[in-house]
């Protein structure tokens, strides 16, 4: 299958007094429709990896192809556009704007894309409906439960119909049951062909993915496609 994401010997170094290599010569190919989990302890480079994949940062060395286009040398403005049109973000702490309604939160990527207000409203209502919040569209985030807020965030991430859904510990702030519900939504989306890339440090959450890669000291330590089986065998 055609790769959505293609990292080619990507290295990321930071200069905080001394140079720190956060990612060291990483190669990664993610085909369309794959559900990938990235694991690793803190300091393993998974946050850096997510920032790079999310076009919030540029690699120091190497190439990053997103949907076939090299995005490793784009300007800040161009990266904004890429994020706006090709990527969807789901965060651990939901990151909804508390003073805006559910609809206004969902439509935010479309807002910056310059989509007309009426079309935005239609799309956000449709997505709100889809994540099961059709009756809460005019509510504000503080009036919602954690699970509901994460559903709004997922709807927001989907509003621009992204190539990849990037999730950063999406269940980290939720109880186990709600977390499972959110994983259900992810599985459902993946079933319908959505490419999902999720960062987590919890093995049971990673077990929902088709493929799991583990990072350690900025390198890919393992890359397995039968993780859920292995996890069971470990358990």
């Amino acid at each position, binding site marked *: 299958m055609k790769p959505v994401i293609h990292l080619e010997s990507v290295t990321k170094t930071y200069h905080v007094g001394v140079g720190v290599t956060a990612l060291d010569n990483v190669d990664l190919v993610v085909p369309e429709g794959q559900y990938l989990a990235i694991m690793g302890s803190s300091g393993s480079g998974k946050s850096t990896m997510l*920032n790079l994949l*999310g076009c*919030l*940062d540029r690699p120091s060395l190497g190439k990053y192809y997103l949907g076939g286009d090299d995005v490793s040398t784009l300007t*800040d*403005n161009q990266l*904004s*556009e890429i*994020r*706006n*049109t090709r990527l969807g*973000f789901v*965060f651990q702490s939901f*990151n*909804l*704007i508390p*003073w*805006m309604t559910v609809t206004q939160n969902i439509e*935010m*990527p479309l*807002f*910056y*894309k*310059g989509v*007309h*207000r009426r079309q935005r409203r239609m799309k956000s209502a449709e997505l709100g409906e889809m994540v099961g919040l059709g009756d809460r569209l005019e509510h504000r985030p503080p009036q919602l439960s954690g699970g509901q807020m994460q559903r709004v965030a997922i709807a*927001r991430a989907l509003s*621009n119909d992204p190539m990849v859904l990037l999730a950063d510990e999406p269940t980290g702030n939720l109880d186990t049951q709600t977390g499972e519900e959110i994983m259900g939504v992810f599985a459902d989306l993946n079933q319908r062909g959505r490419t999902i890339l999720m960062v987590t440090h919890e093995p049971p959450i990673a077990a929902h993915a088709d493929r799991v890669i583990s990072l350690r000291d900025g390198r890919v330590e393992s890359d397995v496609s039968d993780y859920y089986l292995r996890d069971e065998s470990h358990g």
Partner: protein
Amino acid sequence: MGKLFDIILLALHSLSVHLVRSALTMLGIVFGVCSVTAMLAIQTGASKESQEKLSVLGSNNVIMNSIEPAQETTRDGGGHHGMSMKKFGITYKDLKCIVENVPGVLDYATVHNVKVRYYCPEDRNRLSLVMGVTPNYADILNLRISSGRFISAVDMLHMKPYCVITQTLARTAFKCLNPVGRTLKLKGQPFEIIGVIDYIPSKLGISEEDIPVFIPKTTKEGKFGQVNVNWYDGKMTSEDVQVDQLILKMKDESTVLTGAPVVRSIMEKNHDKLEYAIMIPLKLIQAKAAQQRIWDMIFFAIASISLIVGGIGIMNIMLASVTERTREIGVRRALGAKKRDIIIQFLFEAMTMTTLGGLIGVIIGYFVPPLLKDVVNVTPIVSVPMLIGPFLMAVAVGVISGLYPARRAAALDPIEALRHE
């Protein structure tokens, strides 16, 4: 364009969420604009009033007054016990020299004073300054006649016992504004009131408290004589002043400036003592205007400070808001907002506050100055540029004080901003 409009709506929305905070921040600008407008209005009103007062003296005039020389008793050397004769001031010889030698003198008026007691049935008898004047006196000084007429050439010729009084005297002595036709006794002699003048220009050297009464020059000489004799503290003093006041009407402002030094040199040649004073209204007007400009600038600067303070308030709140909303900025950036979009949003929030504050300030500034009329003792003048100027200043303050916080917001690293707690 649609997106810009959307971002502007977004800015308005976020301001409305923090309504109290936005309103309080705006208040600084409201006061700033209001005080600039009020200052300008009061200043313009005061300036106009003082210019008007001075222009009554006539910018084409040169006014000369006789003054008693300091520590000088006599000119003819002493006098008898208990009596002294003072002889000083401008003479007819001076007048002749000036008229013959100074270029550009169109006309002149002379004033001859005497202090006498006046009497009318309605008022106690008080000391009044009777001024014998020529008929052109009122014209040269642009005195406004509120009722009746001024002294005429015919009155002069026939030494008529007519007098012209001020409105102040009309009010105090006759309890009415139009006592024309009634009689006023000056040193026991009846004078018919033929006219009332508005007021005496204060710079003329006489005030309303002197109770000036104008009579024909010839009548003054006929009835009261050339030499004024006064009894004071049991001592009799007499003053012999030929011309108490001489008003020269020059052709134009430039002849005022060229002629005045000539007048001064003639006077210096004819007199070895300083027994005269020369006043040039044009110079007073010019000096006043220059002084006014300085005051204008000072007042404007003071008023502007409040606007600047308001701007600092806005910047402060915007900076706090950027810090408080760091996470929001991070989310917006992650979801595709460009730096420019963030700048517009925050800049517009600041500008909305100052523009709205400016508008309210201008509206208050339009209605408040007239209410201050009695407090500041001048009639403030509000004009359109006076409203537009401070308003534009407020808008500019919005741009200046909003730009830095907005740029700071846009410069935030999205990754850092998302991690911000």
